[in-house]
């Protein structure tokens, strides 16, 4: 399954902003996604914004990036403009079914 536009764009921008290799950056972001129960093929804008604010700063800091919070904050604004994404997130779709199951 192909990676989502949000994932690809985030990795490219992070690699530019941090000077790290794109392949390495993709690996870092994939690990962060896994920690949050997400997948590169289905991650959407809102999910990536949460990842950028709460997971990726720690991962980037561990890789020796200076000011990871600043980098992620800048990228959060750029990602917000992408719009859409996450349409193929089967887990979110299944969770929506279970949300309906709980209605009265």
């Amino acid at each position, binding site marked *: 399954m192909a990676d989502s536009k949000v994932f690809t764009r985030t990795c490219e921008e992070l690699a530019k902003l941090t000077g790290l290799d794109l392949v390495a950056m993709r690996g870092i972001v994939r690990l962060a996604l896994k920690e949050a*129960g997400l997948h590169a093929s289905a991650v959407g804008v809102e999910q990536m914004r*949460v990842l950028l604010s709460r997971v990726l700063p720690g991962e980037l800091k561990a890789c020796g990036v200076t000011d990871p919070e600043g980098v992620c904050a800048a990228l959060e604004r750029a990602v917000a403009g992408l719009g859409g994404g996450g349409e193929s997130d*089967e887990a979110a779709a299944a*969770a929506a079914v*279970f*949300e*309906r*199951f*709980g209605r009265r």
Partner: protein
Amino acid sequence: MAAIVLAGSVLAWLMGLAVGARLLRIAARTHQTPELAIGLSYVLTAGFGFPPLILASQLRASQPDLGQMLLVFAQFPICAGLFATSLGAWRIFRPAARWPGVLIALIWGSTATFVGRAILAEDYLDFRVESWNAILAGTLGWVWMSVESFLLWSKLRKRARFGLASPEVTNRVLLWGVSSVAAIVSSAVGRIQIEITDLDVKSFVALAHSADLWACAIAMWLAFFPPVAYRRRVAAQRNLAAQGGT
């Protein structure tokens, strides 16, 4: 002990009927396949399948003919319910995939063959209810449901830590998985119970079956009709996630 065993069956029957009715009511509003399929699954399996099964278990010793007839009769709604279960699993967890269609066709083919044989049987007393291909096919739907539930729960649990999934829904998925496992165990133990002739062993198996049905009913009750204290406990996890706690 007989009362405890009977209580487990009656409780699972009532809970299955309540959950099924509720899901069908939701399906009438949303017009979505998952709630329709799972609602039908519960109403058919528990609502229409359990009463003749419970009666059969009570009557088999005193009136074996009637007991056997009820046992065969119970298989029709149960098989239809198991088919609805696998359809529901497909529409909930893999709506975009095509391969579950093959799996469901196998399940349907196997259960339909069993039901067809039961209808065409010249003498229902000679008809063996313990058709292993139907048992396997029927249980497969619940195995699939439970595996998918736990996989989904594993993802949602991680997401909930970051506020990306609702703790209430995450908890409901976990309880759904638990009740699915209980349904698998119930199906297997129920069939084994029919085969056993030794009365001591049969009593023990009946007790284990009842305990499993209690577990299934409690998991469904917490998932669909949670008491206030339980809802508060789950909501506390939501607040923790919102505060950034992990």
